[in-house]
């Protein structure tokens, strides 16, 4: 019975609002835009952060990534001419790592260098990575053709090369390239496979295989190319000695990732005079990214709050005007026996219907816009349940909050005065 009455009240409210279609529409526009932008922003934001989180997850939640970095002092020294900088992770570090931590399951050391390469008549500089078979376990990528580097290649020190999608594209290599000879820095390598590659940034660390063109066995790269790299920048002849550029460490359980990361950091600290390495734990980054996302949501929420506030004020403004305009109607209703609270309910329901309708339209727009963005730019967007229900609930609440004052005003109308005014 009560429910039927509420439905009827809402029906009458809608009827009343439909009497002034344009005005009702314009009144709810603020909420439409408010809710629309909130839903759209949340969806785009959620999509972006989900994308970032996914990237980080791709690094592996039980992986730790060690990277060689030129220390600050070294960076200064290298500005003087013909200086050879020595820094970074060493083979010794790698050996110690695998021996000292029982929670470490696998490690994948890598050397990264730039070498001139040529495949048939096509020649260009490529980013070459010397890696062990373990790399392909820790950075799993789909195989397009052929195979990856195996333990046998490592043992026999075979001069084999695995192209990434990027590298293959640069060299115009196809599946047919497999078995052909690729010249890297003057040495001959047999192309044995092509793997897919991943691009993008994951938080503040690069994806391990970002920008890599070709993989060769680590031992081979060490034997062929050594540990000293010449870098020619702006006229200075700069040389660097780096044994390993990167070590990816996999722990047995994500739970241990952070503690092992800290342990590695301590251990490296003992053996390195300078801080010429960086330890990043994707899981920690993931947590950090999630915290960032929360901050982002708070910022979005405040912007949303402001736009909805403006929308609410717009509604209140019109409702106040409407109360003045309908003074006579209110007077008539009061004279016929409507109680104050019934007048309040009438206006409150109208406001809530307005704001909620605005919220629903806004929701539609807010879902449509990210869909269009996704369609045209390929940017990931995500509509979450919260992203839908919250603005809707808020728009309803706005109706109540901003409707109560006009409704109270309406209830204060004195029927005697109201009926007198023509």
């Amino acid at each position, binding site marked *: *019975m009560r429910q*039927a*009455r509420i439905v*009827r009240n809402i029906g*009458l409210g809608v009827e*009343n609002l439909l*009497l002034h279609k344009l005005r009702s529409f314009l009144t709810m526009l603020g909420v439409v835009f408010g809710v629309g932008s909130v839903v759209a922003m949340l969806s785009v934001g959620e999509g972006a952060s989900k994308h970032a989180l996914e990237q980080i997850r791709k690094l592996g939640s039980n992986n730790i990534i060690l990277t060689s970095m030129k220390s600050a002092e070294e960076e200064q020294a290298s500005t003087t001419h013909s200086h050879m900088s020595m820094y970074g992770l060493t083979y010794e570090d790698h050996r110690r790592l695998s021996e000292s931590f029982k929670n470490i399951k696998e490690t994948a050391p890598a050397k990264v260098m730039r070498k001139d390469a040529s495949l048939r008549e096509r020649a260009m500089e490529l980013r070459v990575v010397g890696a062990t078979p373990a790399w392909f376990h820790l950075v799993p990528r789909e195989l397009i053709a052929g195979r990856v580097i195996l333990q046998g290649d490592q043992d026999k020190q075979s001069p084999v090369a695995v192209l990434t999608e990027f590298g293959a594209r640069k060299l115009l290599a196809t599946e047919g390239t497999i078995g052909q000879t690729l010249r890297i820095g003057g040495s001959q390598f047999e192309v044995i496979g092509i793997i897919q590659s991943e691009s993008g940034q994951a938080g503040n660390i690069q994806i391990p295989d970002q920008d890599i063109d070709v993989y060769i066995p680590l031992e081979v790269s060490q034997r062929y190319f050594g540990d000293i790299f010449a870098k020619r920048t702006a006229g200075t002849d700069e040389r660097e000695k780096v044994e390993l550029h990167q070590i990816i460490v996999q722990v047995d359980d994500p739970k241990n990732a952070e503690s092992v990361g800290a342990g590695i950091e301590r251990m490296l600290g003992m053996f390195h005079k300078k801080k010429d390495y960086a330890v990043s734990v994707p899981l920690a980054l993931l947590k950090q990214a999630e915290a960032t996302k929360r901050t982002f949501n708070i910022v979005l929420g405040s912007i949303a709050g402001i736009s909805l506030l403006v929308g609410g004020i717009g509604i209140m403004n019109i409702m106040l005007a409407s109360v003045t305009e309908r003074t*006579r*109607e209110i*007077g*008539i*209703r*009061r*004279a*016929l*026996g*409507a*109680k*104050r*609270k*019934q007048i309040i309910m009438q206006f409150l329901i109208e406001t809530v219907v307005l704001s909620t309708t605005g919220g629903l339209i806004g929701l539609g727009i807010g879902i449509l816009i990210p869909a269009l963005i996704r369609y045209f730019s390929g940017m990931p967007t995500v509509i979450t349940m919260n992203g839908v229900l919250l603005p809707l609930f808020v728009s309803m609440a706005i109706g109540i909050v901003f409707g109560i004052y006009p409704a109270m005003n309406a209830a204060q109308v004195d*029927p*005697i005065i109201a*009926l007198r005014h*023509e």
Partner: protein
Amino acid sequence: MPTNGHEIVRLENAWKVYQMGTEDVKALRGVNIMFEKGDFWAIMGPSGSGKSTMMNVLGCLDRLSDGAYYLDGKDVSQLDDDALSELRLRYLGFIFQSFNLIPQLTVQRNIELPLYYLGWDAARSAERAKELAEQVGLGDRLSHRPTELSGGQMQRVAIARALTNDPQVIFADEPTGNLDSATGVQIMDILVKLNKLGKTIVMVTHEPDIAAYAHRRLHMIDGNIDRIEEGEHRTLTAPSAGHASPPDGSRRAETFVAPGEDVTHATRKA
């Protein structure tokens, strides 16, 4: 308080004082009057005589500053706003000079208005509205808006609305003031018929012609009773029709009367 059983409205030493700026305006100055059930009263007097205030007080739209107002034997002068609204809703009907229909609502919705506040459901309200519209001869205008009607039709809608709750007393404030004389006569016809059917009618007017339809005329001056005239100057039906006759079932078959249903009882069910 002693009542004679026929009493419906009684003012005892009724004062109404308004604050107008720094000045006190005494609109009613100790009025004593009693109306009986089934009576047809006209309240007359020049502007400023307090007749409108009297009407508002009797219609439970306004409260006395001092004195007592008994409606159907109950002292209502101390009731709060909600209780007065309830009284208007259940026991009183109003007809105004400017009709006071809600222009956005259809005739049906206008007539239904009191039922909405009485909590009737949509179907029963619609049925009742249709019945009443037919009784005032506007059964085919239910879905029209007031602006599409003539003045006389609008006032008939207002009368239908005043009857929806089967009121004890109908207050009519210059009911013909905005109508031409022929239409005014039609409206007065309806009021006279309603009175014959037992409705107590209290009408404010300054037109002697219109006041002549009433059984008793209360002339007011300076916030008090100047004199009371009795007897019908002009009647449309037999002059002997008793003004004090209580509503009885035998007359219910005629138009302008609520169906046998007791409105208050019906609400309790709803």
